[in-house]
C-alpha cells in the first residue's frame, strides 16, 4: 500500500467518523482490498475505534480484508440467475479453481466472488470477469472464457521473458 494514496483518500475527511464507509469504499477501489496498516491509519484519522473499523469492514460485502487476484470473477446469485442455473455455474468454477467463493487461487490469478444480485436479471445467468459482463452464460462457456484468459496471461509472461 502506498501511504500517499491513502492520504489523498483521507483529504478533507479527518475527524469525520461519518465518512468511514466512504473512505473504505475508496480504499477498496484503490488497493482492491483493505490493508491492515491502512485501517489503523483510518481509525486514527477519522477518530473511530479500530474495533469499529474492523466491524464495519467485516459487515459489508464490498470490502475484502485479503488481497485479491489479478482477475476478479463474480457470479451473480440473484433469483432469476438461480432459476436459470447459477448454482451449477458457481460450483463448476469453484471446482475448477479448487477454491470457495470469496477466495483467491494460490497463484493470485483469480478471485472468485458471489454477489446476491447485479440487477441484470433479464440476462441471467450472469458472470462478470474483470468488468466484462457475460450474459446467458453456461458452465461450459464460462470455462472456455476462463481458459482463454489464462492463455493470454501465459503469452504475456512469455513476451516479458
Amino acid at each position, binding site marked *: 500500500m502506498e501511504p500517499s494514496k491513502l492520504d489523498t483518500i483521507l483529504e478533507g475527511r479527518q475527524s469525520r467518523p461519518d465518512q468511514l464507509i466512504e473512505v473504505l469504499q475508496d480504499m477498496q477501489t484503490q488497493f482492491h482490498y483493505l490493508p491492515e496498516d491502512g485501517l489503523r491509519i483510518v481509525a486514527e484519522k477519522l477518530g473511530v475505534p479500530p474495533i469499529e473499523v474492523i466491524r464495519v469492514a467485516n459487515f459489508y460485502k464490498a470490502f475484502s480484508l485479503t488481497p485479491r487476484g489479478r482477475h476478479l470473477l463474480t457470479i451473480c446469485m440473484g433469483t432469476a440467475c438461480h432459476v436459470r442455473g447459477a448454482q*451449477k455455474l458457481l460450483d463448476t468454477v469453484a471446482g475448477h479453481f479448487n477454491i470457495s467463493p470469496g477466495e483467491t487461487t494460490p497463484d493470485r490469478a483469480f478471485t472468485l466472488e458471489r454477489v446476491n444480485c447485479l440487477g441484470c436479471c433479464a440476462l441471467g445467468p450472469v458472470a462478470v470477469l474483470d468488468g466484462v459482463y457475460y450474459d446467458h452464460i453456461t458452465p461450459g462457456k464460462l470455462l472456455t472464457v476462463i481458459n482463454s484468459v489464462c492463455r493470454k496471461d501465459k503469452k504475456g509472461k512469455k513476451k516479458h521473458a
Partner: protein
Amino acid sequence: MHRVEGPEQLTSLSRVLQEKRQEQPVTVVVSSGTCGQAKGSLAVVDAFRRELDRQGLANKVTLRVTGCHGFCEQEPLAIVEPENIFYCRLRSHDVPKIVSETLLKGKILDELLYTDPISGKKVIHEAEIPFYRAQDRVLLSQNKLLDPCKIEDYIAIGGYTALAKVLTSMKPEEVIAEIKASGLRGRGGGGFPTARKWETCRRASATPKFIICNADEGDPGAFMNRSVLEGNPHSVLEGMIIGAYAIGAEHGFIYVRTEYPLAVEHARIALEQAREYGLLGKNILGSGFSFDMRLVRGAGAFVSGESTALMAALEGKLGEPRPKDVHTVEKGYGNLPSNLNNVETLSDVPLIINNGSAWFRAKGTAKSPGTKIFALTGKVKNTGLVEVALDTRLKTIIYDIGGGAIDGKEIKAVQVGGPSGGCIPAELFNLPVDFEALTEAGAMIGSGGMVVMDENTCMVDVARYFLEFLQDESCGKCVPCRLGIDRMLEIVTDITMGRATEKQLSLLEELGETITLSSLCGLGKTAPNPVLTTLRYFRLEYEAHIREQRCPAGVCRALIHYAIDPEKCTGCQVCLRSCPHGAITGERKKPHTINDEICSKCGICKEECKFDAVIVK
C-alpha cells in the same frame, strides 16, 4: 454559467431546447443501460458515431444514448426517429447498413426488425410489439427521450416544471394534500402512504430535517430502481426536491448500492448539473427555498435497505436495524427527523404534480392507485421491465407481456417480491397485482421482482435458495432471525437431500410463524414467506422429496443422476472432453457412460451434447 433564476427562465429554456430538438428531428436512440452495455451496446454506439461521421451525417442526425428501455431480452436496440423504427439485437456490424439504407435512403431493414413470436410477422414500431402494447409506461417511457447525462434533455421534455409549479404556486401543505389525494403508496416494499410519511416528518418538531432516497435495491430479481436512477436521474432529484420542500428539509441523501456503478455515476453527474442550473443549492429557482443533497454509496448489505439500518449506514456505522418504537420520520439520521422514500416513489411525484392527483388515481385500484414497474424475469419469453397499472392481472403480465413459457414448458408459479415475498401458483394468475391482493395470497409487491418458474424449477430448492440468501444477509442482531433462519435452512436442506422426515414439515411451519412474530425488523419478519407460501401451494413437492426421495423438477442434486441414453449416443466424445471431472468414459463411436461416483452433476455434458443423449433421472 447556466443558472436558471426563475420559473419563467425555465419555461423559456425548455422552449429553446425543444425547438432545437425539432430542428433536427432525425435521431438515432440507442439504449445503453447496464443490461444494454452487458449485451454490447457501447460497441453499437461507437459504430454509430463512426459511421455517421464517415457517411457525412454527423451534423444532420442526432445520436442519443439513453438508459434502459426495459426490453432487456432484445438489447442492444436502437430506435430511428421520427419514424420510430425499432431495430433490435444489434451488433456493431449492422450499423453501417442502418446508416446507409435507413438514414440515407429511408429503407427499413427487415432483418433487424423484431419478429412477433406468435404471428411470426415483422414489427416496425415499438408500440406494436406485444411486450410494450399491454403496458402503461408513464415512468419508463421517459427513458428513451433523454440522455441521462444531459440535464438539457430532461428540461426539454418538461423536466423541473413540477418543481417550478410547487415553488411558485403551492404551499408545502398543499403539496402534501395533492400527494395524499393521489393515494401514492411507497414503491419500495410495504406500500406505506407517501403523504402520511411526509406529513409526520413535517410535523416533527426537531430541525434540521432530512429527505433520503433509498436506492439500495438489494432484492435479487429487482432492477427497476437501477433503471430509473440510471436512465432518468433528474426525475428522482426533482421528486426529492419537491419532497424536501413539502416536509421542510434542507439536506438530503441518495443512498445507492455500489453494485450499480452506472447508477452511481449518472446520479453524480445529475447532482452536479442540477447544482449548476440552480435547481439544487441556495435559493432554488429564485424562490428563497434552499436544499442540497449528497450521494452515498451502500457497501453491499441487504439489511441496510431497512430504514433504521440505512440511517445508521449513512452515519458511517454498521448498517444494523434498531427497534422501531420511535420512527425515523421523527428520529432518524443523526437522531433528527428523516423521511425515506424509494426511487420509483420519488420519480412518480413530479408526474402527479404536473398531471394532478385525479390523473394518477384514474389508474389502478382505489387502494392501490397508479402504475408500478415490475422486473419480469426467469422462465418466460420476454424478460425486462414492465410498467402496468396496479389492477393488471398476473396472467396479463406473464402471458400477454411476457409471452408465456420458454420451449413449450408449463409455467407453474411466479415468485413476487423477492426474499420477503412468496410464490404464487398458476391457478391464482387471475389475481390483480395490487398491494392487498398479493399480500392476501401470502406474497407481497415488495420491490416488484417477478421471477417466473416452470416445471423444471424445484419449489423446495427455491425455498432453500431464499433461506440461504437471508441467512447470508441477516445481520444477526436478533435471535429469531439469526438462529431461526439457520434452523429453517437446515430442515429445508435436509428435504432437498432426501433425508428429512414428515414431522419436520410441521416444525418448519411452526418455526416460520415464530420468526415472523418475533423478529426485530422487516427482513426477519418476512423471511419465512418463501417457505410458507411454497408449503401452502406446493406441499406435494415437499412430500415427494421426503416420502419418495424424488425431486419432481429434477433439480436437487442429491436426488438426481445423470446418465447417457445408449440409443441416442453417437460416441462423438464431445461430452467426454468437456467433463471437467473426467467422469465420462467410452470409446469413439460407441455409447459412453457416466461414472455416478465421480459425476458432480454440473450438467456441462447435457449442455454440450448435440444429440440429447444425456438424461437426468
